[in-house]
């Protein structure tokens, strides 16, 4: 019994190495690497369970970047290796795996997590062991750990501009807003911020409908017809959707089937990207909106390069790129630059070196890492096209810094600093 308990740890190093070997089977050009043990990055994305749908693409992105950097001679003249684990969409397992990556696989940085809960689960581990996590997904903010770099958007870099757009002439002068979301912390917080924002813009609570549904909700008949009714009150209405990835397909199907056209009730989504649209027939959805910091359709040299890399790596013309992948890419580039600048992979110097790092991101802007551990990002609003791509109809002139502590949440006033 105890042997089974102890053995894994002892053999795991070897085992992991073996695992890595297979992972790195990719045809990396044999370069002569300088002295020193390989640099290790951990990949902490669910490859099974409910989140696998979204997270496997990020795993592939990191592996792609590892291949890329090795092809360019590695980092500090050392080879970069990826340690891939499967936390299986199981939040406690995330914490366990994080500890394993840091203590057993001895990785220098970890790229991982999608859901907020997984991040919350690993946070104490990273803080205890002073590890480095790159979190690539847009999230609700209200957090800032010295051990995490958030390369996704904070609410002010996605939600608020999108709603402003809906309320503007191009968005259809919305006077009533339906806030639909999956019942977890990101939608709850985002909607709370939006409600405060809308009130500040003179929209009464009576003109705001807030509805939450469970994960993977697949029967949207009731809610969509409620929205229809809500829209039938004689004011221009729009939908703001924080519905979680998986439930979107049935939601949009229902929207399409109940004949809600973007001209009548436009909707803007914060969690629907090219990946989600790949799963549905987008024709009935043309004109509905999504707000991100990157679209695959962006015209920029950096994006062309990124897409090229991706299609070369994944060898499947149908596989798209999306915002979290771009954030992973950018985060990896920044980490590489920081390590190069610090001349070491030790966490503290690298953290220092991260601040002020700039990368010409695929979104076509130069993104900078600020001392609040968040990136400055452009905000883009895209219209769903028949082919499942987005056409950017509005974007900020420049990348805007993140407000991870939202001014619209009063409690932030008496928040403990540091």
């Amino acid at each position, binding site marked *: 019994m105890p042997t089974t308990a102890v053995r894994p740890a002892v053999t795991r190093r070897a085992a992991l190495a073996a695992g890595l070997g297979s992972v790195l089977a990719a045809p990396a050009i044999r370069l002569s690497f300088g002295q020193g043990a390989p640099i290790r990055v951990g990949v902490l994305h669910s*490859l*099974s*369970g*409910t989140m*696998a*749908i979204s997270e*496997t*693409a990020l795993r592939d992105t990191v592996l792609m970047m590892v291949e890329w950097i090795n092809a360019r001679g590695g980092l500090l003249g050392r080879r970069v290796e990826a340690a891939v684990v499967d936390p299986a969409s199981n939040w406690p397992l995330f914490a366990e795996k994080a500890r394993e990556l840091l203590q057993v696989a001895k990785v220098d940085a970890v790229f991982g997590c999608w859901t907020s809960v997984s991040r919350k689960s690993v946070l104490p581990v990273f803080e205890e062991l002073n590890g480095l996590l790159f979190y690539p997904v847009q999230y609700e903010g209200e957090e800032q750990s010295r051990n995490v770099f958030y390369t996704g958007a904070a609410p002010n870099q996605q939600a608020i501009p999108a709603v402003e757009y809906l309320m503007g*002439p*191009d*968005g*259809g002068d919305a006077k009533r807003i339906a806030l639909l979301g999956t*019942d977890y912390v990101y939608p709850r917080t985002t909607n709370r911020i939006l409600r405060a924002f809308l009130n500040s813009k003179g929209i009464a609570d009576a003109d705001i409908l807030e*509805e*939450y*549904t*469970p994960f*993977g*909700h*697949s*029967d949207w*008949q*009731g*809610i969509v*017809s*409620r929205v*229809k*009714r809500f*829209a*039938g*009150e*004689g*004011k221009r209405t729009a939908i703001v959707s924080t519905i979680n990835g*998986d439930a979107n*397909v*049935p939601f949009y*199907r*229902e929207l*399409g*089937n*109940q*004949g809600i056209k*973007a*001209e*009548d009730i*436009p909707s803007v989504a914060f969690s629907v990207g090219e*990946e*989600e649209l*790949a*799963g*549905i*027939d987008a024709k*009935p959805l043309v*004109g509905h909106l999504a707000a991100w910091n990157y679209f695959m359709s962006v015209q920029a040299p950096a994006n062309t390069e990124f897409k090229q890399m991706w299609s070369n790596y994944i060898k499947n013309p149908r*596989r798209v790129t999306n915002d979290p992948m771009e954030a992973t890419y950018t985060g990896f580039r920044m980490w590489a630059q920081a390590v190069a600048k610090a001349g070491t992979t030790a966490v503290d110097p690298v953290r220092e070196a991260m601040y002020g790092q700039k990368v010409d991101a695929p979104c076509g802007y130069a993104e900078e890492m600020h001392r609040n551990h968040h990136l400055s990002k452009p905000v883009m609003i895209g*219209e769903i*096209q*028949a082919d499942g791509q987005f*056409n950017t*109809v509005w974007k900020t002139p420049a990348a805007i810094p993140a407000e991870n502590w939202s001014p619209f949440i009063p409690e932030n006033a008496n928040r403990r600093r540091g």
Partner: protein
Amino acid sequence: MARLIRAVLLLLALALPAAAQQDAFDAAVSGLAGGFNQQAEAVERLGALGDPRAVPLLRALADGRLLKRPDGGLVPPGEAAPPGAEPVRVNNRVRVALRGALGRLQLVSPDPAERLAAAEAVFRSRDAANAPLLEAALARESLPRIRSQMELSLAASRLVAADKGAKRAAIAALGAAGSTDARALLLEARAANPALAAEIQTAVAAIDRRLSLRRMAETLFQGLSLGSVLLLAALGLAVTFGVMGVINMAHGEMVMLGAYTTFFVQEALRGVPWLLPWSLPLSVPAAFLVAALVGAAIERGLIRHLYGRPLETLLMTFGVGMILQQAVRTLFGAQNREVLSPPWMQGTLTLPGGVSVTQNRLWIIVFGVAVLLAVLAAIRLTRFGLEMRAVVQNRRIAATMGIRTGRVDALTFAFGSGVAGMAGVALSQIDNVSPNLGTGYIIDSFMVVVFGGVGSLAGTLVGAMTLGVVNKVLEPWAGAVLAKVAVLVALMLFIQRRPRGLFALRGRAAEG
């Protein structure tokens, strides 16, 4: 620019209007290539000009077929696309304008469908300027359906006109129409002219009375449609669990396999455009076969060895489910698969009384009932069904009468799995086609079967429909989650009262 001139000249060739209008028209057309705001204005102007030549242009623009040259010049519709040309993008604002403009222009189109669409579009565009157009169109219109729509639209545009008398009439007309849109218009108008508030109020009240009835009908429909989904998901179990007493935790994966089969059939038919719309019906037998084969393999290879040990079977099939799910994930990727809905399953259908039901849901109800009947027929009418019932009632005697019970078991399980596969075809229309598809349905299916009474198909039907409707009735008050929780708890308590379910079977059904 020269090219644009030529383009316009080409348009001129179609018809020769007064030179005066000419410049206005050209100016407007050139505006279409500009920024969104410019576009919107241009579209509105074209709509106002009422020049029929604008129609093809606008329609091309609406469908994203209108091309723009690198130099900004427009490519006339129908002309070959020059190199470097790309479609002119629009946004919602432009779309709204387009709908209005096309509506105005097509009110007099020879095609009745177009006239109807136009009338509806004009209704939405809420523009007083439309009134004269509509009057003109009405004068010529003969088809009653279109006339009534046009009258509504007329009322809508008069509502925003200046004339008080006209407004009163409009309010009455809209009140009589009793649609949600009409209600919206009226409420909008109420804000605009407080003088008429009282009349508008009565009109709205009239509409609300109708709507409340309609809402009940729609809730019922939604309940039935949810019920039919549950029914489809549970039917396979009703066979494997109900008849054989086998707890198949991999049942959800069978459904998932069915959905994937649908996807692959569709991919296979992409080459054959005329068949594509029928890929869904074609996938039904395919999905049945695939799932049935997998089911047969599982039964012969594994379950067979565990008969009489339902709990072990449960655990074992749980493992099988894990394997199937991961297999699909590694083979076809974790991403969702796109299964198109054929045209005849899209959009909504308005029943008499204004109750609108979504086509795909309607078809799924039909499909669910059809599958149920098919299963009944298979069990009641076929030789296989007879043997199956015989084996269920008394395996030993059946064996002595020369029935190869092993074979029957395999067939029964395969049959149940096949039914699950067919459910997958339906679910591919309303849910994600992903490796996790099945997991979401397994528990509900079990509850349906147990609630309805194990071994009784009638019970499964009633059970599924009851659960669906109750769920949908509760949803508005309790919210989706609490409704589901409430239903589950109620079910658990019900099963305490009647452990054998609604339609308890005599003798042994599936004893644990």
